[in-house]
C-alpha cells in the first residue's frame, strides 16, 4: 500500500509528519480553548443570573413602609 518513495523517503515523510502534527496541534488547541471558555462563560453567566434573581427577591422583600 505504501508507495516506494525511493531515496527521498525521509524528506517526503518528514514533510508530511511535521505538517500533520502542526495541523493537529492547531485544531486541538483551538478546540480545547473554545470548550474551556464556553464552560467558563456558562458558569459566570449562571452566577450572574443567580445574583440577579437573588437581588430581585431581596428587593421584593423590602417593606419600604416599615
Amino acid at each position, binding site marked *: 500500500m505504501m508507495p516506494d518513495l525511493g531515496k527521498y523517503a525521509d524528506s517526503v515523510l518528514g514533510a508530511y509528519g511535521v505538517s500533520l502534527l*502542526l495541523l493537529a496541534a492547531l485544531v486541538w488547541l483551538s478546540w480545547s480553548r*473554545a470548550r474551556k471558555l464556553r464552560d*467558563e462563560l456558562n458558569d459566570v453567566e449562571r452566577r450572574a443570573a443567580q445574583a440577579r434573581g437573588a437581588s430581585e427577591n431581596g428587593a421584593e422583600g423590602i417593606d419600604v413602609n416599615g
Partner: protein
Amino acid sequence: MSLWEYANPRRFMQLSATALPWIGGLSALCLVVGLVWGFFLTPDDYRQGSTVKIIYLHVPAAFMAINAWVMMLVASLIWLVRRHHVSALAARAAAPVGLTMTAIAMVTGALWGQPMWGTWWVWDPRLTSFLVLMLFYMGYIALWAAIEDSDTAADLTSVMCLVGSVFAFLSRYAVLFWNQGLHQGASLSLDKEENVADVFWLPLVVCIAGFVLLFLSLVLLRTRTEIRARRLKALLLRERMA
C-alpha cells in the same frame, strides 16, 4: 438582509453555530481525499521523483499563509472604518492559523528544497518575503497579547496588518519585480500553460479546497472563542465591581 448584520456578535454566533459543523466536515473530507489521492495515487515526477508529493502540503499552506493575511487586512480595515468588534476579533482569531500555515510552507519548502536545490534555504525574493511575513504574524500575535485594552490593541494591530500586507503582496508577486530567484514560478495560474501537469493539478486543487475550508472553520471557531472571552472579561469585571 445585509452582511453587516453579522457584525452583531449574537447574529454571528447563531450563524457560525449552524455553519461550523458543515464547513469543518467538508474540510476534513477534502483534506483526506486530496492527501490520500496525492500521496498514494499519483506518480513520481520525472525530475523531482517522489518529492513532488510534498506539493500537496506546501502549495496549499503557502496559498493560505498569504490569503490569511489578506483576510486579516480586510477585517482590520473594517475595524478601523466601522469599529465592528467582531471584525477585529476575527483578525485576531486568524493570525495563529496563518502563522501555522506559514510554518508548514517553510518547513515543507526546506525539506523539498534540500534534495532538489542542495540547500535548506536561499535568500531569494519569494522566500525572504515569506520569512518576513512569518515574523509579522508573530509580532501581530504578540502585540495583541501585550496590550490590556482590546480597542487599543485592535487599533495598533490593524495598522501593523496594513504594513505587513506589503510582505504578503511581495510573497506572491516578488518574482515580477526582481529576478526569478531559485524558487519556481506559479504552480497554479489562470494561464493554463504555467500550471503543473493535470495528474498533479486535480488532487492539488482538492487539497487547496481542504486548506481553505480548514482555515474558515478554524477562524469561525476561534472568533466564537474570542467573542466569548470578551463577554467573560466584561462579566468578571462586573462581578468584581458588584
